[in-house]
């Protein structure tokens, strides 16, 4: 493989982890990401191919976990598919092979910074950041929202577990917003 040494979205060699009180913010650099959008009129083909390939295509506002592929809905007939970076760095090529011409597939891995948020209860943090009713939505809820002017995807894995995808170029600003809110909330 190439000799180039990657930098994280925060400009470091290793993923960043921050702890404040009960909250841990962990940068995830080990996730490969690609968008999958059904070609016009090809949803049935896509569903069949996806099922065969083990790529979940959950319904609106939903994340579905799987191995190696997990996915969350982002728009009508469009999903973001996650997979381990170590084995699926070429996620777009792998999905193209699996799903054929029924979908338009685009690598999104480095378009985003991913943060895992962990605490006993994330509601006090998230209510200071976005207008998602975090306590009320079910586990596996995935939505697009805005935090400190930044468009982000928020995926709820539990009352105290969530993943956030934010624009990679603003990773430092987003982390700052998370930390500031954490100091306010906890």
């Amino acid at each position, binding site marked *: *493989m*190439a*000799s*180039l*040494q*990657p*930098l*994280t*979205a925060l*400009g470091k060699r290793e993923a960043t982890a921050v702890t404040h009180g009960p909250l841990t913010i962990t940068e995830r*650099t080990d996730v490969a990401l690609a*968008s999958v*959008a059904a*070609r*016009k*009129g090809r949803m049935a083909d896509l569903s069949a191919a996806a099922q065969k390939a083990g790529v979940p295509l959950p319904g609106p506002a939903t994340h579905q976990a799987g191995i190696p592929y997990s996915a969350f809905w982002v728009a009508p007939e*469009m999903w973001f598919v996650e997979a381990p970076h170590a084995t699926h760095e*070429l996620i777009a090529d792998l999905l193209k092979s699996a799903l054929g*011409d029924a979908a*338009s597939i*685009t*690598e*999104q*891995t*480095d*378009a*985003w910074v991913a943060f895992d948020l962990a605490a006993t209860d994330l509601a006090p943090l998230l*209510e*200071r*950041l*976005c*207008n*998602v*009713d975090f306590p*009320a939505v079910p586990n596996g809820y995935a939505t697009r929202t805005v935090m*400190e*002017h*930044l468009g982000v995807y928020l995926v709820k894995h539990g009352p105290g577990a969530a993943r956030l995808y934010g*624009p*990679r*170029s*603003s*990773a*430092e*600003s*987003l982390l*700052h*917003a998370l930390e*500031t*809110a954490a*100091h*306010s909330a906890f």
Partner: protein
Amino acid sequence: MTQSHRIDGGLIDRTKTLRFTFDGIPYQGHPGDTLASALLANGVRLMGRSFKYHRPRGPISAGSEEPNALVELRTGARQEPNTRATVAELFDGLEANSQNRWPSLRFDAMGINDKLSAFFAAGFYYKTFMWPKSFWEKLYEPIIRRAAGLGSVTREEDPDAYDKGFLHCDLLVIGAGPAGLMAALTAGRAGKRVILADEDFRMGGRLNAETLAVGDASGADWAAAVLAELAAMPNLRLMTRTTVIGAFDHGIYGAVERVSDHLPTPAKGKPRQILWRIYAGKAILSGGATERPIAFENNDRPGIMLAGALRAYANRWGVKVGERVAVFTNNDDGIRTALDLRAKGVDVVAVIDSRPVGDLLPGIRHLHGAEVIDTSGKLGLKTITVRQSNGATETIAVDALGVSGGWNPNVNIHSHHRSRPVYDAGIAAFVPGPEGPPGLLVAGAAAGQMSTHAALKTGRDAAIAALDLGTAPDLPQAEDAPVRISPLWFVHHGKGRAWIDQQNDVTVKDVKLAKQENFTSVEHLKRYTTLGMATDQGKTGNVIGLAIMAELTGRSIPETGTTIYRPPYTPVAMGALAGRSRGKEFKPFRLTPSHHWAKEQGAIFVEVGNWLRTQWVPKQGETEWRQSVDREVLATRKSVGICDVTTLGKIDVQGTDAGAFLDRVYANTFSTLPVGKCRYGLMLREDGIVFDDGTTARMGEHEYVMTTTTANAVTVFRHLEFCRQCLWPEMDVQLISTTEAWAQFSVAGPNARKLLEKVVDQDISDAAFPYMGAGNITVCGGLRARLFRISFSGELAYEIAVPTRYGDALLREMLARGAEFDPVVYGTESLGVMRVEKGHVAGGELNGQSTALNMGLGKMVSKKKDSIGMVLSQREGLTDENGYRLVGVKPVDPNGKLTAGSHFLEKGAAPVAANDGGWLTSKVYSPHLGHDIALGYLKGGDKKIGQRMRAVNLLAGLDTEVEIISPHMFDPEGVRLRG
């Protein structure tokens, strides 16, 4: 002075003593005190000066409606003006100062205004400062501003932080008095998600200020028990110190939580306040009612207070405002004050009851049919003059007077959607109208239900109705006294001033004057007299003012109506509205993949939207930006330069109709572009004006990668989505932004290919990768990458892209492996120099007013197909042969200076608009040519090549003779480009 006016009882913690100062004098109070209650406990009645006449004033209320007792809290950067002493929670070390007085509160030189009051009636400013016109800004306004006004600001930056947040609930209960508590209890026990918000630091509302029982307990104890139950419910959120400031659309309410105002400074990392946006399924307004005074001569002296406030200070705070107290009332609630004060051992010397008949209070001098007609006492009340029912007058020595003119339901929140309250003659007050914000119910005194029982019942019933509940708690026993009131708005007596709106010094006389001058509409009355403006928004004065106007005009009160209620309910700190968006955190930054490398080099950054782009990279010894930029440009044209162009928008366009889609959004054709090629594209708006430009590459049969300008990356994407979703939903096209996914560098200069060959794994010779080629490659031993042979500099140039995480490494690798070519990293300034030298358009030319024809790109608008903007770009006005055309410009004298924004004028023409020939859009210094060069739009410019004109900028003092030249000022044949 040690709390000379403190009496027994109250909800204060006497085991702890808090020290504070007012105007530098030390005092003591207790936890549970407000600044006002603590000052009153220390015998201090004088707390401020009035707005216009600088009259001595004390508090008239015990709540957020306070018009008078406005003080400056704290000192230094945290000094806050116009804070109501009646709601400022006491803390140890609090420093408060009076405001709007000089040199001191007791002796205020501006008190002369009071003597000159005859000149300062309503409309005074409008009539007096009309002429000469020029005096307004320099003379009149500064004088008025100094003389009038409230507190002062420090002009220091606010050191505190403010948060914004979002809350969701089934039911928002606004106000935690008996109605609110009962509503919250009902909904809470039913398992609903409830937010109970109250502006006070102690919930319970009037229950804390009354001696009335609820069930077997005192009202305060019942409230405490309910609150304890609510606090234990996981589905219930109690928000004290939280004012719901407005009802907005779709069940959204604004609320300000004062997290740290009761502390000397906020705890580390904690905000001072939070502005909450509350998404409520339903809401109940249970905000209680506000007592109103009665207007009579000199009714504004310190010591004259709302009767309910006098009672609250005694019952809740253990404070007697005076030693000898009288009550002036037109309703039974005033009687309650007299009884409570007497029970507290206060000497109640008289009850002046304007109602002609009624029961007599045992043991208290109770004068029916009597009115207070005047008072005395310069800095505090000394006597009142009473006119008895038989016309006899009597002067009574008192140092406190409680006045009750009835209670106004707090309808504000219910009226924020312009719902007009309706007049209820039974309680002589306005109650919420039939049409409030959807989903908002009203309960308790806010709904005109004035007894404790009615408050409890309507609170419970509102919760049942709002949430469609089947079961509900039993109601505790509580008083259910009717409202017995005989309206009295002002006392007809004498020619002195009787205050209605104490904050704005509006008197009965002013209302009469407004009526006399035909400002009889309440909205005109407000603006003419300033009634109901400023921090209290007329909470105590508005209804009296409009009732007096009704009486003067012979109209009924309902016919007269109220002014419009608008948010916020109480004043909101500007910081709370700003939240975290201030200073460097005003907006998020976007950092390029080369940011960290550039920072190491000491690069200068420029903000481009949210991006921080490298503007230039100074080397040691370079003291001035031009040195760095000239070096970067010369080095690039001599050998090779690298520029981070990640910021340009990248949009992945896929689908079987991708080519056809691009044909429709671009003015030129893309469906014919071969795979592996890229093409410059021009995108028009519907009106035919150029929207954006960029290159788009065809990476596969059904896969294109579009680039946009940095500035329009988002707007172009949004536009394309609109086209895809709304204009042509039948097309098979999928879009996604990949701007951030790829780190992209321009590599330009005669040695660009040689440098790239050091990192690219494939053959990129001219034959294998010709001009305008595009494709997927690998670099540095297998990393996926993209290469585009495009040039913005006029040099042999490529743009190479790798996944963003490898961008930093690729840059370092190119610099290291290509060291033999002495590569330079250049910034946006050098980029600009080279593109102007080549005549490429950018922001200055893509100005939202220019067509392709203007830019010399008219032929790019294909007539063989339809595309957005194509038809309208052919409009007569846009195709004028002598319209603006892009030209190059150079000074005739190489030392001549140019500047963007200069206008073209013929030699000898006067610099007036009629002679304007166009303007310079972009200007740079060309180190190759050795002089300034510019691009510009010149009328008929394409026919003026070679002519001499002037570039005139009156602002910059420039009038330079210039030669009009081709915009292609460097290597016009493009020899270097094709390398």
